[in-house]
């Protein structure tokens, strides 16, 4: 057996672990064919590497160890917890929800013209204990007392009912939010958005709708949700995973379609997503995202739809990119952006 240099050994290991470049692979394959020592070393190392066993997955032991560790932590943590994060909302110390599964609900909603009616319809004194809002371009994470985590998108408002956590967990949303709902079959979690109420029934969900836009959209990723429109049981919709309900504010019709997760949750990772949005809705989205009023100058634009995803880049770059593929132009007038043009 001939000894080889370190570089060649590491190259062979890199190959076996799929970590070397195409160029290095070519070099290695050529060496294996022409160099006997190299080829022997390759076989030996391949043998050693193929003998590698997976790390034992001692799940039961891990769970037992975790249980003991958590008891220790609970003893340490008897003192009330500090409120952390950006919000001043009360937080309840969670007692061992070891493998409790959080349900995820994504709600995006809107409707400027229903907003006032909604406020006025609320029975006095039952809610509005906690209220949080975000301004344009801001995102905020809120911990609810039941362990549910809400991520609030820009220019949105979330109110939590005063009797939250008693029988029902109800919140009122004006805007866009991602809900990570803690499962509790005894206490349904309901998100009120204008005429649409979304109730969590199962374990894993995402619901979505749009704020200030022409549609309210509820999108479900896993589990089941129940969507009630206008409190009318005959219009109740139960969504299955991969389906979304779109409720039009204009004709008050609801329909169910398929969707792509990234299109719905992109904003959470700072991606500005237009998912066949009308220019009217896209303008509102831009305005919320960048905190700049946006005006559409040509009514012909209203018929166009926009599909695309942008990383968190400056507004001017977004507009330049849109301009490259569509027949629009834009300008700033004071702090207002004016978009003109027509559909392609």
């Amino acid at each position, binding site marked *: *057996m001939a*000894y080889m240099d*370190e570089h060649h*050994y*590491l190259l062979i*290991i890199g190959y076996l*672990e799929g970590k070397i470049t195409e160029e290095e692979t070519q070099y290695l394959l050529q060496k294996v064919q022409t160099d006997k020592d190299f080829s022997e*070393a390759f076989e*030996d*190392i391949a*043998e*050693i*590497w*193929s*003998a*590698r*066993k997976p*790390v*034992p*997955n*001692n*799940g039961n*032991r*891990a*769970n037992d*160890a*975790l249980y*003991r*560790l*958590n008891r*220790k*932590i609970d003893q*340490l943590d008897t003192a009330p*917890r500090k409120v*952390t*994060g950006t919000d001043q909302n009360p*937080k309840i110390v*969670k007692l*061992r*929800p*070891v*493998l*409790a599964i*959080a349900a995820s609900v994504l709600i995006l909603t809107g409707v400027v013209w229903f907003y006032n009616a909604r406020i006025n319809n609320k029975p006095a004194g039952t809610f509005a204990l906690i209220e949080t809002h975000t301004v344009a371009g801001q995102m905020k*994470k809120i*911990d609810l007392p039941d362990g549910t985590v809400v991520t609030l998108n820009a220019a949105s408002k979330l109110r939590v009912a005063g009797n939250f956590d008693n029988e029902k967990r109800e919140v009122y949303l004006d805007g866009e939010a991602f809900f990570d709902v803690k499962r509790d079959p005894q206490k349904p979690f309901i998100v009120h958005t204008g005429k649409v109420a979304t109730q969590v029934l199962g374990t894993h969900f995402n619901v979505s709708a749009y704020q200030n836009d022409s549609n309210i959209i509820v999108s479900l990723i896993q589990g089941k949700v129940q969507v009630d429109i206008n409190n009318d049981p005959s219009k109740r919709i139960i969504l299955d995973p991969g389906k979304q309900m779109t409720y039009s504010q204009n004709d008050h019709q609801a329909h169910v379609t398929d969707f792509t997760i990234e299109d719905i949750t992109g904003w959470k990772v700072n991606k500005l997503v237009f998912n066949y949005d009308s220019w009217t809705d896209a303008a509102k989205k831009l305005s919320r995202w960048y905190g700049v009023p946006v005006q559409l100058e040509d009514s012909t634009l209203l018929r166009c739809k926009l599909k695309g995803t942008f990383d968190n880049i400056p507004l001017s770059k977004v507009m330049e990119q849109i301009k490259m593929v569509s027949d629009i132009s834009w300008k700033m007038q004071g702090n207002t952006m004016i978009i003109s043009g027509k559909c392609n």
Partner: protein
Amino acid sequence: MEDIELLSKVKTDDREAFDSLFLRYYPLLSDFCRFLGIGDDDGEDIVADVFLDLWIKRERLYIHTSLKSYLYGAVKNKVYALKRQNQKLQLLPEEYASDQAISDHLHPDEILVKKERLKMIERFAEELPEQGKVVFLMNWQHQLEHHEIAEILNISVNTVRTHIYRAINYFRKRLLSVK
């Protein structure tokens, strides 16, 4: 969910994220303890201690490399502290002696079986100097990158490479002797 995402949730007091991290790393870290020569019970205590520290320090914890390197490094430090405390633990586990005795009496057919080959390599690894063994197992068994091993053991990347190189040379020699 990525480590970094779970860690940031832990920083905001999320116990479920903490549990997920524990369950993700427990098998790896207890296996790591095992090849550092620590029995299962002590290993569990060490891993639990590391996570307890993580929880207590969660708010002011600043991890400048990766969570993985941090956890392995913390386990390693606790193992070495325990070994210093209790010199007896520096002895290799008891099975080692008997395994060693039969290592050269493997039937040739046995080496064809993958399981046997694995045992053989693990046995050869035991024959390496302590640090060489640890480096090799971290790379081979736990698939840690060279730079991660270097960070965890506080040695240079070149030393890591040299250990791996020497281990393989040694194994090739040993494999030749049993073939």
